[in-house]
């Protein structure tokens, strides 16, 4: 066999294997990345068992097993485990590394309880006693646990009532504070008031007095009721004890949920798991976004994407229509295609800085000076907000919509279009009746791809109106209901912010994985729908041979 090697090389098998390696590595990376996020993200909510360890020096720690590693200490490899010990207000830190050689005893006691709280994170300990009003209940741990659950429910109901009464109180005072503000605005310009203003001021002041008389009685009544309820709430508490024996009092209404993980079976744990997942999607964030839910971020993302779609779809469809139906071949078409291609290539941060300089400072500043001059120097539209963020993203995703719509328009068989024109329809009638309905899949594809891009882009949003924690949603029940000048939260930005700018990154990391998982799920689902639509479109295209 002459020249085995050269023959081998000519046949090219090694090169083919090389190319297949490229595919394997690429796909492998994707699969690895997605499974990593899946595992870490989904695993976050599973209530884990609590381990109690006793060390050689007599100390004992109670917590969740977080990680393990082999560290090199003093040139010797040592096995270590990391416990999440919680109890931030007592220990100052959340996690601790323990050498396995120092551990003398491990156990999973049945009575340990995990408390998820509104502040200071988790607490791991034992229930010492339950206090309800004047009663103090103690006894068997299981009995105390059930009693605690009963009173916890009572505390939740009480909290609901407290919120109701607080809302009523606020609504009562609202007109009073509004009047006070108007009066103080007048008082600020005291010297330059003319006669008409002075009489208006007097009128407002007398209105204020009348209002004060009217609301003083219900105000006192409601305040007293609120105080009573709050006192009752404070009297519902637990005395808890850490593994070391330190005792502390915990108000029941400040506990989000608590359970004894070592006692639960898989079904019960699944129940807690599902309730935590629901909390993640529907609740407000706590502890500077490291716990709780991401509902405002989901809401903000959805709202922003909606506004962006309203802006980009008409623009993109009009542009695609112009390119395909109206423009004459030659310079104009080439220029527009060149523009679309370049818009697609511009980095997202350039859109962001353009949005900041043009939309926010120039346009927004002008709007402020024309319509909101009395509120200056505090900006209304001259600062980041959901409107400007949506417009910036609309510019960014315009090329996607244009290209997808063009694909849709091209799928319309020429025979139909020319037939309509032959029957005497105007160009617009033909477009409206023939092109647009048939191009719907393409337009939808473009819309969906734009939405998926908008959900994932963070850089331009960072500087045009997304914040770490928004005090209110852009849509609420106060007039004008849709507040276009408000800042909002965004899922992608949550990932960046919680992962890189939170005070306790180690404790926050699981939440970041879960948010990333949520974001990926949204993006993947959207893209799958777009691919499905596009395949249907391609099939249609293939059948029209004309």
């Amino acid at each position, binding site marked *: 066999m002459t020249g085995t090697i050269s023959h081998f090389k*000519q*046949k*090219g*098998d*090694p*090169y*083919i*294997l*090389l*190319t*297949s*390696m*490229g*595919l*394997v*590595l*690429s*796909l*492998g990376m*994707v699969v690895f990345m997605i499974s990593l996020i899946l595992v870490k993200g989904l695993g976050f909510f599973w209530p884990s068992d609590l381990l109690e360890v006793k060390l050689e020096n007599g100390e004992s720690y109670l917590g969740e097993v977080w990680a393990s590693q082999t560290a090199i200490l003093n040139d010797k490899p040592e096995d270590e485990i990391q416990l999440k010990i919680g109890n931030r207000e007592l220990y100052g830190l959340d996690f601790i590394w323990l050498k396995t050689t120092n551990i003398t005893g491990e156990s999973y006691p049945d009575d340990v309880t995990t408390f998820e709280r509104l502040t200071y994170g988790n607490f791991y300990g034992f229930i010492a006693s339950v206090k309800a009003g004047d009663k103090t209940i103690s006894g068997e741990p299981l009995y105390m646990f059930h009693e605690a659950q009963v009173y916890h429910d009572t505390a939740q109901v009480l909290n609901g009532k407290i919120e109701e009464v607080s809302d009523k109180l606020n609504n009562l005072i609202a007109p009073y504070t509004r009047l006070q503000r108007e009066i103080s605005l007048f008082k600020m310009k005291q010297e330059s008031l003319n006669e008409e203003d002075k009489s208006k001021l007097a009128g407002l002041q007398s209105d204020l007095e009348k209002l004060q008389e009217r609301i003083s009685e219900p105000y006192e009544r409601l305040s007293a009721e609120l105080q009573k309820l709050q006192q009752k709430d404070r009297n519902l508490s637990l005395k808890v004890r850490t593994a070391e024996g330190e005792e502390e009092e915990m108000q029941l209404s400040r506990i989000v949920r608590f359970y004894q993980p070592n006692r639960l079976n898989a079904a019960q744990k699944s129940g807690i798991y599902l309730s935590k997942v629901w909390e993640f999607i529907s609740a407000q964030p706590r502890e500077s976004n490291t716990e709780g839910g991401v509902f405002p971020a989901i809401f903000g993302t959805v709202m922003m994407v909606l506004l962006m779609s309203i802006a980009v779809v008409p623009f993109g*469809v*009009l*542009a695609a*229509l112009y390119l395909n139906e*109206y423009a004459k071949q030659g310079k104009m078409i080439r*220029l*527009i295609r060149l*523009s679309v*291609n*370049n*818009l697609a*290539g*511009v*980095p997202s*941060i*350039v*859109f962001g*800085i*353009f949005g*900041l300089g*043009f939309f926010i400072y120039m346009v927004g500043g002008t709007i402020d000076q024309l319509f909101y001059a009395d509120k200056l120097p505090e900006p209304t539209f001259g600062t980041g907000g959901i409107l400007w963020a949506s417009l910036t993203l609309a510019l960014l995703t315009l090329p996607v919509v244009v290209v997808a719509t063009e694909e849709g328009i091209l799928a319309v068989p020429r025979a139909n279009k020319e037939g309509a024109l032959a029957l005497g329809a105007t160009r*617009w*009638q033909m477009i*409206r009746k023939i092109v647009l309905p048939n191009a719907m899949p393409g337009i939808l594809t473009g819309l969906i791809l734009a939405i998926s891009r908008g959900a*994932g*882009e963070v*850089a331009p949003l960072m*500087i045009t109106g997304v914040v770490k924690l928004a005090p209110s949603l852009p849509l609420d029940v106060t007039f004008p209901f849709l507040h276009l000048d408000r800042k909002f939260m965004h899922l992608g*930005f949550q*990932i*960046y912010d919680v*992962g*890189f700018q939170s005070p306790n990154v180690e404790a926050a990391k699981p939440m*970041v994985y879960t948010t*990333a998982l949520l*974001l*990926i799920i949204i*993006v993947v689902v959207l*893209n799958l729908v777009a*691919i499905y639509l596009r395949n249907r479109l391609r099939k249609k295209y293939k059948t029209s041979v004309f």
Partner: protein
Amino acid sequence: MNDQEKSYFQKKADRANRIARILISIGGYGVVVSIAGILLFLFYQSIPLFFPASVKKTETVDVNHSPHKILLTGIDQYQEIVYVLDDAGIISFIRLSDQKVIGQDSLPLEPQEHLLVACKGSLEEHIFAVGSTEGKIFTGEIRLQPQYQGSRRIIVPSFQLEGQFGAVNQNDSLPVHIERLLFRQTEEGIKRWSWVDHAGRLFVKIYDPDEDQEYLYNLSDNLGREKVSQLTATYNEDKLICGTLNGELFWFDVSQPDNVFLKDNWKVSQAAISALQFLIGDNALVIGDTDGAVQVWFPVRQADNQMKFLPVHQFASHKAPVILVYASPRNRTFLTIDARGGIHLNYSTTDKTEIEFRDSEYPIQTGSFSPKSNGIILVDSHNRLGSFILSNKYPEITLQTLFGKVWYEGYPKPEFVWQSTGGSDEFESKLSLIPLIFGTIKGTIYAMFFSIPLALLAAIYVSQFAPKWMARTVKPTVEIMAALPSVVIGFLAGLYFSPIVEKHLMTVFLFLIFLPVLFLMSIVFWRAVPEQRRAKVPMGWEIIFIVPVIAVTLALIITVAHSVEMILFDGNIKQWLYNVMGMVYDQRNSMVVGFALGFAVIPIIFTISEDALSNVPDSLTSASMALGASRWQTVRRVVLPAAAGGIFAAVMLGLGRAIGETMIVLMATGNTPIMSMSPFSGFRAMSACIAVEIPEAPVGGTLYRVLFLTALLLFIFTFLINSLSALIGDRLRKKYARF
């Protein structure tokens, strides 16, 4: 339907058609307008950086103090009131708008006494000291307080004499003339006076208010035979500089009131020193001599840890001796004025003389900057005061400072530095774009290194060798991979992979080294299977053998890595890197970013090259194989050239994406603007810099506009890449893909 109805419908339809046409055309042109608008807006925001400075005269006031000379002048922050102090000790406050004298004050001078010299004690406040013919030194403060009556603002001027003392007199009969005077009052209240009397003696007096102690020194012995021609000192720190008639400088250390000593002396010029002044920041020293030369020196740390003044900047020379230097209280602008009335406006960091102008035909007697550095006042020897508006908003930016090396204060030599803000107003902004451009290019190169081979190989495999079912599942998967938000990739790279890579650096290296080895092994493995069996495996399924080989090698490497590290690098490869190669290992470094960026770019290159490769007509490949070529020969000789245009376009598109990617570089580099070739150090890319700095940049300020300039550069880069890709792609298509 009669004719009228028909035409009514027709008219409506026609009108709708017209309106639709207009709207649709607007949409079409709107796209062009958008992108042109973005380009123009970026340009509009960054071009003011290069506008030249300008000086415009607004008022001329005849200060009727003749025949007395004006020694000192100043103006308030709103540029409404000026004050002048003449050699009779009279201070006049003049309102510029109507040139009325609104107040007057005076120093308590003897009948025959008049003032010879005056010196301001600080850049911001109007504290000054004056020296007289009777050897007395007076210190005083002028206040120009704004007061509000209703909504009107008026400036209320006032003068307060802080103290006076007599200069040292060693001969009781003759009074001492103060010939040169320097006065400084630091922020903590320490007062320093330095003067040269008519006998050429140099004295320094320091008053420390905390200890209520006065210190007096006669420094004449240190001078040898030199004669002091000028004096200056830093505003808050520790240097007193004396310039001599021989062009030498003497540096006295006055940081400790109880110990003043000569630190250094050196020659700076062949001519006599005629003007000296420190600039804001207490580092840069402006030296003017009788030859008209203007230089800036500042102290630089030497190898022996001593500070030594070095010549740094040179400016346009005057045609007459430089007699006055005024430093701006806000930035490093300074005025130099010569004996014939020529005035230069210079900026220290940029080595630039911005404006040269004359005001009057008479020599200038004294002058001052306005407190906000937006105006200048100059008084000539005929007691005419001219007030000017100075417009120089972005003096620190020139093409040289943006793209060239600049010698900043405190640095041993000119460097490329990006350091946009510091703790105080006195900070010298260092805005060089080169570290950012370097960072972007570095990240892009690493990303392309990693992604082009993988993506192209995968594309060739999927389009040419893989079975159809595999192609059908792989393509949508890669499209979804393209849609993955870069936030997630960046987050994983920064928070998950960086620590792991740092901990298991040895494993990563071993994997990279063993990849070709395992590839060869897999071939051997493949060849070991007998020919019969091999032929039975359908085309494209070779991939099955790759997967277990990779897995086995990974497992092997992970177990073996620690021992190898122990043997080769004494247990710590990072230490070895530092000791032997001098490279510091940052946790978030270019290698990690290269992987992450490459990961983000692979789907783009893959999709488009795969499209291009699939579009090569089957007739070509069939013909090639019919002629006896193997699959690989066909791919290499026929398919690849035919698809060259598309592949090039794909790579260019990936390149464009890598250059503009923001979130990954933001999260996975350390965002440190350093220029190092090491793959283990971080960097700062243009896009990440914009994202990080623009929220903190004052609107309309220098940093703001420089960031817009950076965005403009990014825009131009991607535009060029797009155009290049279109151009060369077309050329390649024409050359190779004529079918």
